[in-house]
C-alpha cells in the first residue's frame, strides 16, 4: 500500500484523517487557515473542515497554547501549531507551568491530551531568531513527551500517536524536511512513542541521531562503508521518553558511539544520552563517546558560517574515522 508523498503531505493527511474520524480534534495556530499554514501543512483544510475547526489565531502564542490546554482539559483533542520552536518560547509558561504540571498538581485529576506541533532547525539562512533546535530543552521537562519525526512514515504516524496519548505531546518537524519525499504506508501499524528505530544495521560504530540528523548520519554511513567502516544508525524518534534499550543494545554490539544533535552541545540531549550510556553501558565502550553538535553560537545568517555551525555528514565521517583510528 506504499505510495510516494512528501513529509508535508504526510502530516496533512494524518491531521485530515484524525479530524474526519474524531470531532474533538481541531487545529489552531497562526496562519493555519486562510494562509494555509506557514509551511503549507494545513493548505486546503479550512475548505474541508471550516473555520470552526481550522482556527486562525492572533500572534498570541501564550494564549492560544493555553487555550489548547484548557480545551484539552474540557474533552477536546486540540492540535496547536506554533510556527517555529523559536516562537514557542512565548508560550513556554503555558507549556511548562500548565501543560506539564496540571496532572500532577491536581493529584491525577486533570490530564491534558494536547498536541503541539512546531517547525524546528536551521539551514535556510534565517539567522539567530528562526533557526534554532530547542527540542532538547523541552525534553528536560517531566510531564511532556517530545517527538522528532524524521521520515515520511513517522511524520504521518506521530500525529495519530500524539492525539491518542492522554498527555501533552510536542512534535518537532524540521523545516528542511517538509519537501522531502518518501514512501508512506497509511495502513502500517504505528511504531509506538518511545521506541527508537535502527535505520541501518552495522557492527563497528553506533551513530545516534534524531530528526534531520538521521539523514546526515545515513549519508555518513555510506561514505564510511567505502572505507570499510560498518556503522549502525539509530533514529531516536522520541527525545522524551528516550529508548535507552535500543541505544545500549547497539553499543553492546559496536562498543563505540557518536551522537549527532542539532542542538548546542552544552546541556543538550546529546549530553543526557552520554550520561545514560555512562550509567548503563560504560564497560561496553572501547573508546570515549563523541558528539557532533551545533557550534556554540547563535545561528549566523551568512551561508558559509551557518553551514560551518551545523552538523553535517563530513563532520560525522571525520569523527567516526578518528574513533576507528583511520583518520
Amino acid at each position, binding site marked *: 500500500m506504499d505510495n510516494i508523498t512528501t513529509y508535508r503531505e504526510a502530516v496533512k493527511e494524518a491531521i485530515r484523517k484524525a479530524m474526519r474520524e474524531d470531532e474533538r480534534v481541531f487545529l489552531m495556530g497562526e496562519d493555519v487557515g486562510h494562509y494555509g499554514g506557514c509551511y503549507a501543512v494545513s493548505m486546503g483544510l479550512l475548505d474541508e473542515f471550516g473555520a470552526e475547526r481550522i482556527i486562525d489565531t492572533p500572534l498570541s502564542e501564550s*494564549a492560544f497554547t493555553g*487555550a489548547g490546554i*484548557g480545551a484539552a*482539559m474540557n474533552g477536546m483533542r486540540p492540535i496547536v501549531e506554533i510556527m517555529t520552536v523559536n516562537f514557542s518560547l512565548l508560550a513556554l509558561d*503555558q507549556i511548562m507551568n*500548565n501543560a506539564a504540571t496540571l*496532572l500532577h498538581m491536581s493529584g491525577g485529576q486533570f490530564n491534558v491530551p494536547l498536541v503541539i506541533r512546531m517547525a524546528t532547525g536551521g539551514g535556510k539562512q534565517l539567522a539567530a531568531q528562526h533557526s534554532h533546535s530547542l527540542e532538547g530543552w523541552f525534553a528536560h521537562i517531566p*510531564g511532556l513527551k517530545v517527538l522528532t519525526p524524521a521520515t515520511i512514515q513517522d511524520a504521518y504516524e506521530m500525529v495519530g500517536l500524539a492525539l491518542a496519548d492522554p498527555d501533552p505531546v510536542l512534535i518537532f518537524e524540521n523545516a528542511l524536511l517538509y519537501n522531502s519525499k518518501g514512501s508512506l504506508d497509511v495502513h502500517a501499524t504505528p511504531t509506538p512513542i518511545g521506541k527508537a528505530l535502527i535505520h541501518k544495521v552495522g557492527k563497528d560504530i553506533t551513530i545516534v541521531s534524531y530528526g534531520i540528523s538521521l539523514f546526515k548520519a545515513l549519508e555518513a554511513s555510506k561514505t564510511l562503508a567505502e572505507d570499510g567502516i560498518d556503522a549502525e544508525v539509530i533514529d531516536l524518534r522520541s527525545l522524551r521518553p528516550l529508548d535507552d534499550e535500543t541505544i545500549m543494545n547497539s553499543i553492546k554490539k559496536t562498543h563505540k558511539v557518536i551522537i549527532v544533535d542539532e542542538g548546542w552541545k552544552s546541556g543538550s540531549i546529546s549530553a543526557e544520552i552520554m550520561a545514560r550510556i555512562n550509567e548503563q553501558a560504560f564497560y561496553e565502550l572501547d573508546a570515549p563517546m563523541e558528539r557532533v553538535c551545533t557550534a556554540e553560537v547563535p545561528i549566523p545568517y551568512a551561508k558559509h558560517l551557518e553551514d560551518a555551525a551545523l552538523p553535517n555528514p563530513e563532520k560525522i565521517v571525520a569523527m567516526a574515522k578518528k574513533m576507528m583510528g583511520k583518520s
Partner: protein
Amino acid sequence: MELDLNKAKEFYKEMLLIRRFEEKCVELYSNQKIRGFLHLYIGEEAIAVGVMSALSQEDAVFATYREHGHAIAHGVSAKSMMAEMFGKMEGCSRGRGGSMHLFDGATRFYGGSAIVAGALPLAVGMALADKMMKRNRVTVCIFGDGAVAEGEFHESLNLAALWKLPVLFVCENNRYAMGTALKYTESETDIYKKAASYKISSKQIDGMSVMDVAQAAKEAIASIHKEQAPMFLECLTYRFRAHSMFDAELYRQKSEVEEWKRKDPLTLFENSLKDKNMWSEIDRAEMEDEIKNTIDEAVTFAENGTLEPIEDLERFVYSEASHG
C-alpha cells in the same frame, strides 16, 4: 436583588466560614502544620461568595493562589482542603498541590494557579471547548489586579471577545500586586476600561458588598448565556492581611488598612441586614458553633490523613492506564 432570609443566612455563613477557615490556617501555619506559601482571603470574602452564588453546578472555575475562599464558596469540602494543606493523600490534590493548588474535579474547580495571569488562557480554552461542543455552560476566571500587567491577560481577553466565548472574567482589584500599588504599575488604574477596549462588556463594582457582587454576577451570567459573549467584572476590594506569611507590609499605612476594615464585607452585610430587619432572625452564635464544628472536623480529618508512600513519588507525571 431579592434577598430572602435563607439567602441572607447562606451568604453570611459562607463569608464567615471563609473568614474562620483562614484564621484557622494562620494558627496552623504558626504551629507548622501548614507550610509553603499561604495567601489569605480575609477581607475579600464577598467576591467569592457573590460570584459563586450565580453559578450552576455545570460551570467551571479557575482561580489564583489566593483561592481558599473561592474553593469553599464553590463547594469544595473544607476537609479535603485542609488535608491538602497538611500534605495528605486525602487532600483535594492528594497533597501534591498545597494551599496554592487546590483542584476538585467533582465541582469543576480547576485550581489554584500560582503564575499570575497563567490561568486566563486556560479559561479561554475551556470555554472554547464548551462552545464547540454546544454545551451551555460558563467558565469563570478569577484573578487579581497584578494579572492585568501580564501579556496573557491581554491576549486572553482579545481571544475571548474575538471568539465570543462564555467566560466571566472577575478581577479582584485589591490595589496591590504583592507589595506594589497599582498606581505605580498601571497607566490606567480603572481596570474595567481595559476590558472594554477589547469590546467586552465590563463593570466596576463594590467588591466589599456581597449583594452587589451577587447581583452583578447573576446579571453577567445571564448576559453571557443570552449574548454568547464574555463579561468582565472589576471588584474593588482590599486584603486585610499581609500578601503571604512572609510579608512585613512595609508598603502600606496601617491607617489605610483600618480605613478599609470599616468596609469589612461581614460588617457591611450585617448592617444591610439590620436595615432590612433581617439581622435579628440570624442566630450568629449558632452559626459560629456550626462553623467551628466544620473547621474542627476538617482539622481532625487532616490530622488523621495519610502521607503518600515515597514509592509513589513519581506518579501523576503521566496518565496512568485508567486515563488512557
